[in-house]
């Protein structure tokens, strides 16, 4: 299940008794072991589910029923992890990692892009179109932040995600870490509250966030014509997107020739959150093209 040589950072958090849930007595070592094996199982189930959602067949439309069932499973695991506090441990660890690596956005866009491409290019089986950031609010922005963090996770050798780093985009898109929204201006207050307490409200908010990003997962089953499309890294899971995304060329080369988004949208996302979400395109050629393209947009407007 886990690639060799990677540290199981997040699973380790499951080895300790989850904070707050079993606070009553000192759990016996057997109970601890049982808990940790349960957490491990749960974690591996989560990973498996995310992989399944990511690996969509590019040529044939994926099965909606299967996707819905897997997504529900992921949600269920998430809820449970949230309830027993494991989620918080994980997200705090992530946000710490993220904070360390976070740097000012604009000028490093290009580099980040390139880095991500390289990381993403490893092991990615299917080409993906270049994502554009839609203007539908925080969910997209959340993605942006998350993507970067995913990179961190990959770099740290965290193996909670699949061996394919690109698939790491997905967990974030489920709003798994509302704390990451600290990056966004709008949700700052809300998030610091969420991160601090495991309160019920926080949980609800988190779940709301989850659903919001879940929109990305399912929202693209229909062709959304006028609205700018959300992150195509998710869209491609469910395939019903604007025509421009699914030019045959795009699909095959993993790169979008004419992104459908206003320069304002991209700028906004770039400036506030660092690197734009990028597809995990497999070729370096497309990396450079993409890089050029982004630079063009930034400079052009």
């Amino acid at each position, binding site marked *: 299940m886990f690639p060799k040589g990677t540290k199981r950072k997040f699973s380790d958090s499951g080895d300790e008794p989850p904070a707050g849930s079993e606070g009553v007595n000192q759990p016996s070592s057997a109970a601890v072991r049982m808990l940790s094996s349960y957490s491990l*199982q*749960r974690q591996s*189930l989560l990973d*498996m589910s995310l992989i*399944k959602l990511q690996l969509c067949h590019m*040529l*044939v*439309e994926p*099965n*909606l*029923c*299967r996707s*819905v*069932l897997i*997504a*529900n*499973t992921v949600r*269920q*695991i998430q809820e449970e992890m949230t309830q027993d506090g494991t989620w918080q441990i994980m997200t705090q660890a992530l946000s710490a990692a993220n904070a360390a690596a976070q740097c000012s956005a604009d000028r490093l866009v290009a580099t980040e892009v390139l880095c991500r491409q390289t990381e993403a290019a490893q092991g990615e089986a299917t080409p993906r179109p270049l994502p554009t950031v839609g203007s539908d609010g925080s969910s997209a922005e959340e993605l942006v932040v998350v993507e970067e963090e995913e990179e961190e996770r990959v770099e740290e050798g965290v193996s909670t995600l699949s061996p394919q780093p690109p698939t790491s985009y997905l967990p974030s898109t489920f709003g798994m870490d509302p704390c990451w929204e600290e990056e966004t201006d709008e949700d700052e207050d809300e998030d610091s509250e969420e991160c601090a307490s495991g309160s019920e409200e926080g949980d609800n908010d988190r779940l709301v966030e989850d*659903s*919001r*990003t*879940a*929109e*990305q*997962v*399912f*929202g*693209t*089953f*229909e*062709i959304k014509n006028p609205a700018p499309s959300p992150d195509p890294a998710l869209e491609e899971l469910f*395939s*019903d*997107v604007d*025509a421009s995304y*699914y*030019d*045959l060329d*795009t*699909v095959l080369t993993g790169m979008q020739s004419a992104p459908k988004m206003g320069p304002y949208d991209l700028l906004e996302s770039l400036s506030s959150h660092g690197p734009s979400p990028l597809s995990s395109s497999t070729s370096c050629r497309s990396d450079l093209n993409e890089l050029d393209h982004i630079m063009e947009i930034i400079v052009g407007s």
Partner: protein
Amino acid sequence: MKPIYAVYNAGQAVMCGCGVTTGGLPSTAEKMKCFSRYLPYLFRPPTTILSSTCHTEADIISTVEFNPSGELLATGDKGGRVVVFQREQETKSQPQRRGEYNVYSTFQSHEPEFDYLKSLEIEEKINKIRWLPQQNAAYFLLSTNDKTVKLWKISERDRRPDGYNLKDEDGLIRDPSTITSLRVPVLQPTDLMVEASARRVFSNAHTYHINSISVNSDLQTYISTDDLRVNLWNLEITDQSFNIVDIKPSNMEDLTEVITAAEFHPQQCNTFAYSSSRGSIRLCDMRKQALCDTHCKFFEEPEDPSTRSFFSEIISSISDIKFSHSGRFLMTRDYLTVKVWDLNMENKPIETYQVHDYLRGKLCSLYENDCIFDKFECVWNGSDSVIMTGSYNNFFRMFDRNTKRDVTLEASRENSKPRAVLKPRKVCMGGKRRKDEVTVDSLDFSKKILHSTWHPQENIIAVAASNNLYIFQDKVA
């Protein structure tokens, strides 16, 4: 009586069929006895190669259905082809050949398409076939792939007109100046030709993948169902359909449930039912309102908290729904069980049958290899007393609702001697394995029986095991 074995294989002659089922339905006790003595008939679509290890993907059978009289049996495959078998008529000269099914017609129903807008292929795999009751000399069936439903007419031609005045033997137009006399064309008998022609094409009504079609008892309308919508069509009109159920949320983020199957009530033309991925069934009445989003009845069994796991929802997803012939009951198939519901009782099923409960401990592996998403079908027999469904390792199961006995049989050429009756199989869960038992770990999950059908009156079943079609018939001792 000598047991009989018939094999149809890429053009070889078919040996004779067996006998004899009595006109009326045998009593329950007799029936169970009969089912343990099956005579296997093995049919393969003509294009497949003999060995089952090297069949092509396109030959995998994806649907099987008897017509309402039981005279015809249709199969659809992944390559978009439909093969129709017809039952041999009893003749005095060869009384043993009665009851045998031979290929009657083969045609390409659907072709693969490419959706240019989404850059995605539309598979030609036939998802469902439903027959219309016969009203004249021709036969009609509906076949569907993911996006398009087609009405096919299958008709026989055994005569041709001969003796035209204006055309000669080869069909070339004659020079009028050479015609000196007139004659009346006569119909000459020719070899029987069975032709299939597409009479209607119902397209562009489904954004998602069609999973079911069901013909109404009024014989004028039918419904086609995809993951989020149910559409009502008139068989005569192809450019319009009514959307009668739409569970698509306005915000796709809220999508947690999809429609998995739908069927019309067999007698009430205003009633239909649809099942969901959450394990619930909704019965709707079209007279209440045009858009049947609100149900009249809602069938759901409350979850047993003691068996709750991460897979609870997935295994509760209903893969097939079938009304009983009587119209009083409804049968649903989820991953591990078959349930029979009384239409008058919504809070729980009246009967639950475990199909392969030994898989309960293996759900994680089955989730990993995607087998947990397999959609098994279930069927009633003609008298609604026995139900049947498929499992893995080419096993299929039958449950007698009255005696509560059940049997596991295998559709396999290797494991049943050609002229012998089928032997009941058993899966052992662990511990000591008796002779002839199969352990859970040795089950072949690639050999699954998803599709099967039961003759409407007699005890003849057709079971699809990947690219092979098995037809079994009971033998009255």
